[in-house]
């Protein structure tokens, strides 16, 4: 696992997600960087994310050439906007593909995938 990735999901054991924050310009940062990309001044710190967000956009993948995903179709590949304002590419789990909608409230979950232990999102029942 890459150093940066290790750091960004270092809290996987207790199922939380850390994201970068710039103390100089008070903005969140994704993906992780050594220098704040917003102001070029601050050295990013790590903060625990609320893990809450909503679906900013999505697609349902009906056909995948990636061998790891070919048997999983159809699946939801989404861009989730966290309450902190940053957007993360992810999957929405436990949601039938017919029910996925932009604006849907979601919360953090962790799953073991072919590429490691990764943060995904689950629909919040309301």
């Amino acid at each position, binding site marked *: 696992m*890459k150093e*940066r*990735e290790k750091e960004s999901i270092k809290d996987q054991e207790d199922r939380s997600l850390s994201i970068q924050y710039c103390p100089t310009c008070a903005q969140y940062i994704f*993906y992780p960087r050594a220098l704040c990309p917003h102001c070029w001044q601050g050295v990013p710190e790590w903060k625990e994310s609320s893990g809450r967000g909503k679906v*900013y*956009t*999505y*697609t*349902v*993948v*009906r*056909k*995948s*050439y*990636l*061998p*790891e*995903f070919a048997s*999983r179709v159809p*699946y939801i*590949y989404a*861009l989730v906007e966290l309450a902190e304002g940053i*957007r*993360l*590419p*992810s*999957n929405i789990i436990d949601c039938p593909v017919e029910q996925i909608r*932009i*604006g849907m409230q979601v919360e953090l979950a962790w799953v073991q*995938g*072919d*590429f*490691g232990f*990764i943060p*995904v999102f689950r629909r919040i029942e309301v």
Partner: protein
Amino acid sequence: MTIRGRTAISGMAELKPLIDAGGRSSMELLAEVAALAIEDAGLKKSDIDGLLLTPPAEGNGFMWPAQMAEYLKMSPSYINMVELGGASACAAATRAALGVAAGLCKHCLCLSGGIWDPQVFNDQEGKTAVMSKAEMEYELPYGPMGFNSAYAWIAQRHMYEFGTTPEQMAKIAVDQRQNALANPEALFNEQALSIEDVLNSPLIVDPIHRLEIVRPCSGAAAVIVSSSEIAADMPQLPVFLLGMGEACSHNSIVYSDNITLSPVKDSARRAFAMAGQGPGDMDLLSLYDCYPITVIITIEDAGFCPKGEGGGWVESRDLTYRGPLPLNTHGGQLSFGQPSYAGGMSHLTEAVRQLRGQAGKRQIKNHRLAFVNGNGGVMSTQSSLILGRDRA
């Protein structure tokens, strides 16, 4: 000092796109099209002293400009590779204009294209070959489908924000196919399409159907940029480079602040400002079309209609060569094919053909000014051009 109108496209050539290059190499295709372009321009090989390339479609890209110059046995005074994805070809024309206007070269050849390798894009090795480190780390674990899923994200959000419909997006593929029926060089030019045909083709990544996705193929294209004074005495009617504008706001669409608003807003504004023209002055739209949503967003952000109204705009108009403001009269990449980076040059070569009055059956009536847009990545890099038949 502006470079508005100081240079012109004095020569061009394009090979017919083919699915299978029949065992030929990318370098062979590029050499063939280079020879055709200098013939079109009435030049000799020794007249060409500038060489700009888009990236290679296959093989080792290290020192690519020198590899190609060596293959062509050239010793240019101005040489480079332009890598802005699908915007590379338009951006090469801009850089050619800069080199010529600055006196670094006299006739600059811009070369693009190559063979289609089915391996590329179609397996994980191919997918990851075009991914950044950030994409590999933060996108790949979730099963993206390359450009398909990224543009699907944009289309889905555009439908949500503005009420754009699947029928409106399909209309672009339908009208462009009508254009392709009048283009013997197009890859798909035998059968008309209906909106139902497009919407009944398999859904690949919601809301994008198979007939709304470009077909990669083999081919090549070239343009030659010369000074306007010299071009005026050359055999072809010069097509003047009146406006140029570029913009870039991200690489992966994940990092665009607003995925339904593209940097075309800036590139087009810059190009129109240089040309002293506006959207209402244009006679032809030649817009990068990897998917219909790309065209809708480009039309909106270049100012041809208010933001969010692109769907209704394309729905209510005849976009074919018979219409009031024709779009992608060669068929666009959706019907002409996408021969590697030369897919992005096809919008430029078609605009040159139309402005010269050489488009045959699909020749448009008014052909004074064209807006050409190259788009790279996922609405990431933009290169907009205003081309004109008159220098001023």
